[in-house]
């Protein structure tokens, strides 16, 4: 239709991949500035605020890492699913369910405040399990009944958000103050994740996230399950012929992916929120999809992509404050960034000639 011919390259070179990724990185902030300019705002002020809010100051840098932490856990989970070509769009609901599990444990199960070094590991483990259980529903629907997981995971997201909104106004609500906000009581101090960078909110969560990425790398590229996941993703029928149980792989990939998202939710609530808030469902699960793409659907790539995106988000909120613009701008930029990445990827994967 366009008079251009695309031929799929048999082998995508590492260099082409790297170039594409780098271009995406450079393009993303440019996109944001272009959108701002189109909205009639000064790109110079925006650029300054973007710099100071992301890497230019200690508080900006700390906020960038804070933003990157949960995002990294969610995105690396998605890498597992996406590698098996299981399109888990449900990280949002899974992380909410992880946070709900943590709240349930700390507020309702614990009758007396145990020390933090006991509670935190149990709570994080519960968030991991909670996210996995929440992902098991769409996993089984896909593997046993062949139901498109995109639709089911999105429906599960809406369910989780409605459940969250009900819980913070119902069973979990802080009733110590009359007419209080829709929030759970604040957790005892000793349940907060330890801060590792002074004068910032950077917690041990970032270490958990990076270690998770390395473990996922090991899982995907050094274990039989990882091999099966990649095989199913590349060619399900060939994988089946070679004796791999595709159902089992789909289940494992989706549930592990949900478990990591749940852990991301747990790290967020114990590290930053310290209570169950309606803002737990902030759309981070959708941003994680963009991040895992930007990270080239690779566990180690996700480390850089998350930090980059965390910086972008942190920088954007300082731009939003400086120029007094709404936060929907970030959402818009994310949409544009996905489309641009998809378009740029074509240049690495196809040989383009005039027809």
């Amino acid at each position, binding site marked *: *239709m*366009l008079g*251009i011919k*695309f031929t*799929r390259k048999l082998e995508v070179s590492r260099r082409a991949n790297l170039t594409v990724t780098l271009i995406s990185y450079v393009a993303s902030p440019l996109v944001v500035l272009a959108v701002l300019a189109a*909205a009639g705002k000064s790109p110079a002020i925006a650029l300054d605020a973007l710099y100071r809010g992301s890497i230019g100051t200690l508080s900006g840098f700390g906020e960038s890492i804070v933003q990157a932490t949960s995002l990294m856990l969610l995105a690396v989970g998605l890498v597992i699913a996406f590698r098996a070509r299981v*399109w888990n*769009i449900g990280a949002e609901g899974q992380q909410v369910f992880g946070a709900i599990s943590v709240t349930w444990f700390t507020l309702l199960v614990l009758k007396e405040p145990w020390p933090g070094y006991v509670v935190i590991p149990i709570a994080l483990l519960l968030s991991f399990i909670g996210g996995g259980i929440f992902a098991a*529903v769409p996993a089984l*629907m896909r593997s046993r*009944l*062949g*139901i*498109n997981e*995109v*639709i*089911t995971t*999105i*429906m*599960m997201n*809406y*369910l989780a958000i*409605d*459940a969250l*909104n*009900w819980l913070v*106004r*119902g069973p979990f609500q802080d009733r110590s103050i009359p007419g209080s906000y829709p929030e759970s009581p604040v957790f005892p101090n000793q349940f907060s994740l330890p801060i590792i960078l002074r004068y910032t909110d950077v917690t041990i969560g970032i270490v958990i996230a990076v270690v998770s990425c390395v473990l996922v790398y090991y899982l995907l590229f050094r274990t039989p399950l990882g091999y099966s996941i990649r095989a199913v993703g590349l060619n399900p029928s060939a994988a089946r012929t070679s004796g791999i149980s595709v159902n089992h792989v789909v289940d494992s990939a989706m549930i592990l992916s949900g478990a990591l998202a749940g852990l991301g939710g747990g790290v967020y609530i114990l590290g930053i929120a310290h209570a169950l808030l309606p803002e737990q469902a902030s759309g981070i699960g*959708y941003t994680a*999809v*963009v991040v895992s*793409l930007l990270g080239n659907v690779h566990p180690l790539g996700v480390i850089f992509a998350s930090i980059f995106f965390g910086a972008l988000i942190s920088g954007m909120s300082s731009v939003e404050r400086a120029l007094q*613009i*709404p936060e*929907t*701008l*970030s*959402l*818009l*930029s*994310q*949409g*544009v960034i*996905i*489309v641009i990445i*998809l*378009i740029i*990827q*074509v240049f690495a994967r*196809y040989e383009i000639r005039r027809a």
Partner: protein
Amino acid sequence: MRTLAVIDAASISSLIAAIIELSVPMAFAALGEVISERGGVINLGTEGVMLVGAISAFSVGFFLHSDLLGVLLGAFAGALMGLLLAFVSVSLRQDQILSGLGIYFLGLGLSGFLYDQLFSNIGSTIRIEGLPKLSIPILSQIPILGGSLFSLDVIEYSAFAALVLVILVIGRTTFGLDLRAVGENPAAADTLGVSVTNIKYIAVIVGGALAGIGGAYLAISAHAFQAENITAGRGFIAVAMVYFGKWKPARAFFGTFLFGAAYLLGSFFQVVGAMIPYYFLLMVPYIMTLLILVVIARGARQPAALGVPYTREG
């Protein structure tokens, strides 16, 4: 919304009318999705397309006081989103799921951004008139059904007209034949001289326009616009209804009426001051979607080449 009227009059007639009004946005989107998927392209971004249609229509309705012109612009905006999806997923052959997600984010962000730009400085309540109901003489006098089925607004009538049109086009025209061939076996269609790319472009663009109309009608029939996410999953439900309808236009179309009824139930309980927590009622449509998918999963056969980018061999 006619929820209050439902409770006051408590008549079956206005109940049906309310269900139709709540279903039509999803019904349009489902019709669009059927066309797109019969041509082999999943438009997962329908939700985003509806949002863009909604904000376009609402802006025109509010600033230019013409709701119908708004619907037209909504259709046009939807078509543009369809064009973008077609370019990325058909010409560039990128994964349709990811392309659709990109369209969703784009629509979500664009509609929120435009809303903030256009309406955030307006202090007074932001409302529009909505479309007048047109009663068909004699038929609208039929007891119970007449008052609801023959006293609709022009977009609601158009929805039923669009259903008939889509059934005829897919089943009875050369384009429909080409469309189905492209969705089932693009290589064979290509051999017979059908331009696979053109057919897919048309299918996705028309599908986008229909989803745009659906979003437009959603905003206009609500008379008001919330800042973000006015669709609240209706676009995704429309996609699910295409599965439910086994890619048949009429089944997908009327499948959305189940959801119209579910939404009505939600707002009904909200008004009477429910014993059931409000958020559980909000969950009903999503739980219904999951259950329906489980029940319908067996025996559904999708177009053979659905989701697969076409590359001519050799």
